């Protein structure tokens, strides 16, 4: 029962976050904006359509969206919602989670190269670079989570680390912030990427999907929502572990945290110059290292 509820809640989070981002943006822009469920309608339309393939593409291009979505689903199934239990959980699933998403990235990069389009090649190069740069942050982030308990499974980590210990609370809040930042990068949001731009030359994730249409495009969208939900939920779990370790806290918190912060950032600030993105992402890794270091000192019970 807990497993079913866990899975449903992850899906709910994945659906709610894009809706909240759109609403936040609309309110801040003083617009009426699109309805909360507009993104679902869009994807419904896409899923009911056939696809068009470029003649230069091969079978790789055609299977890529399915693998991409499959990987995102598997990754999402590893994430616990606070006190509930995920479908897939085993020792070392944090590593498996990271590389399942890396598989998704690799397959979509290869598919983009497969089209032979100069735009998509540029997008693939950017995605590969940023993917490589964000990986240390992700790994150090997981290490920080595992630092206090020594477990390597999401479910065990959060199960163990719920406490009112001040030291642990500090580390958990900092880690939550780290995963929020990673969520921004991984879901291709401002300031790293701009999902709304129509300018191919400036795109990162979108440009790799330019040749996809219909059901393929729908699958890529859904995979994107799931990825965002995973990172938001990890951040929300980390916060929930410090005080209120219940699913009814973690789910709304995950939605509000990402939905509002992405919406506000996208309304009020400009995107990075592309060449500054590398600095931005390396800084996240540096931040991760710093948080790990703080965590390590706190674990050694240094007085603060």
């Amino acid at each position, binding site marked *: 029962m807990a497993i079913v509820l866990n899975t449903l809640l992850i899906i709910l989070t994945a659906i709610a976050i894009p809706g909240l981002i759109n609403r936040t*943006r609309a309110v*801040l*822009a*003083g*617009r009426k904006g699109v309805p909360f469920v507009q993104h679902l309608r869009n994807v419904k339309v896409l899923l009911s359509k056939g696809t068009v393939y470029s003649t230069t593409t091969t079978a790789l291009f055609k299977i890529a969206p399915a693998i991409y979505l499959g990987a995102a689903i598997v990754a999402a199934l590893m994430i616990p919602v606070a006190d509930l239990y995920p479908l897939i959980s085993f020792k070392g699933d944090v590593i498996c989670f990271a590389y399942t998403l890396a598989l998704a990235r690799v397959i979509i990069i290869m598919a983009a190269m497969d089209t032979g389009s*100069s*735009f998509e*090649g*540029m997008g693939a190069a950017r995605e590969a670079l940023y993917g490589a740069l964000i990986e240390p942050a992700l790994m150090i982030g997981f290490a920080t989570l595992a630092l206090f308990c020594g477990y390597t499974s999401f479910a065990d980590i959060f199960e163990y680390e719920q406490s009112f210990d001040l030291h642990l609370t500090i580390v958990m809040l900092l880690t939550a912030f780290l995963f929020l930042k990673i969520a921004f990068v991984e879901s291709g949001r*401002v*300031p790293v990427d*701009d999902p*709304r*731009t*129509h*300018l*191919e*030359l*400036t795109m990162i994730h979108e440009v790799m999907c330019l040749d996809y249409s219909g059901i393929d495009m729908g699958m890529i969208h859904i995979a994107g929502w799931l990825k965002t939900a995973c990172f938001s939920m990890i951040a929300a779990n980390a916060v929930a572990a410090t005080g209120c370790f219940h699913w009814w806290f973690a789910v709304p918190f995950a939605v509000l945290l990402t939905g509002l912060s992405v919406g506000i950032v*996208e*309304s*009020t*600030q*400009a*995107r*990075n*110059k*592309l*060449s*500054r993105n590398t600095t931005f992402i390396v800084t996240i890794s540096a931040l991760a290292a710093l948080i790990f270091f703080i965590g390590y000192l706190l674990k050694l019970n240094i007085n603060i």
Partner: protein
Amino acid sequence: MKYYITDNQNTAISLSEIPEVEYAALYEDLKERLADSSYHVAHYFACPEENRLKFYLILLNDAEHKVMVSSFAMEYYDDIALPSLSALHPQMHPFEREITELYNVEFDSMPWNKPLRFPYNRRNQNSTMDNYPFYTIEGDSLHEVNVGPIHAGIIEPGAFRFICNGENVLHLEIALGYQHRGVENEFTSTTNRLRQTLLAESIAGDSAVSHAVAFTMATEKLMGIHNENLNIERTIALELERMAMHIADTGALCTDVAYQLGQVACEALRTVTINTTQAWCGNRFGKGLIRPCGTNKPLTAEKIDMIRKNIAEVRRRYNEVKEDIESSPTILARFEQCGLVPKAEMLRIGGVGMASRASGAKRDIRSSHPYAAYAQHIDHQMVTMRDGDVMSRLMVRCQEVLQSADYIEQLLANYTPSSLPRPDYTTTLQSEKLSIGLIEGWRGEICHVAITDKEGAIVTYKVKDPSLHNWLGLAIAVRSEGISDFPINNKSFNLSYCGHDL
């Protein structure tokens, strides 16, 4: 070297008064004069005249506010040496390319003699747009990115070929001409002046008022008509268009860097501005407002109140957006030091208008060659910046919007609506004259030239949109920039495809 010297308010020039010189003299003279930044060429074109090919040169002297006209001619079998001026002064490049393309006149040692618009090319009939050989650079670490000619969005066609080293642009070549409609020939193929006015309004959709004013100026000079109040109303229309386009571009620049607040604020303000134009004349872009010798849409006391109220509101709110942009670090990080065009480069390529002023070049017809209300009612102080980056181009826009709002207020505050004449499409034009319509549109200098025959019909009509010069400025701006910064550079110039292609 002889010139016929006039200014931007005098009537049309008799063809017989325009001195005809030897090309060698013209070459030597221009060679020296164009090295001086107070001179630049407004138009240089060839047209058939009886059995000869006649070349007209319109040179502007900004310092002394003069328009200088000269000419030379070539017989069909003449074999005179025509050393190219482009080699010395790249600002002559588009003009010489056009002459070569249209009349198969070869300028000696002309660098990069590529077609300008790719219509039927007399010089080389096998040269078409489809087989145009783009400039290439060989290298293992280089790649080419082609954008266009079909635009992914809703704007016009143009082909952009980038040669990149990773993310950096080494070279950008822009090929235009896809929008060539034969506008200049259309002007001469009809004697219906209303039709010609409509044509002028349709040269570039975003400069409908500017091109229409240039056309009416050229034709009214050919009739010797001058109406002060009509000129004031046209000036107001021009400034309204300038405001609307500058505000729209501010919004577009914000969109391209994903700055939503600036985008939505500017979209709303642009709507108010163009709706003001619509409330005045029935069309948001001012089509139907500018007519020769008169107007169908004179200002009334109520309309004046409406315009003053709206413009004051737009000015106040736009100023807030401007301050917001100036104080936002993420936006400054994108716009500052991006897409630099130094002043020297801008002058070399003959850049005009707001893009040139952003680089510090003092090019503004409103103050260098005042016309209409700028001649008497407004002492125009041009807005110039120093750096020539995207931020400078944006700041020229921001300040010009505020300035235009002030001009509109100043003109309307002292304006009493009077009964203006209705448009006149029938008066015969003076025969054998050359008339120049020279104005500063929102993008820059627009120059229309009309030449009439013995019966007073227009036999040659030449149009020059500022885009003709400034496209090269864009290519220079993106050199060594990241390719992902091309869109904001492009938007900061916002050049016209159809204005260039005609």
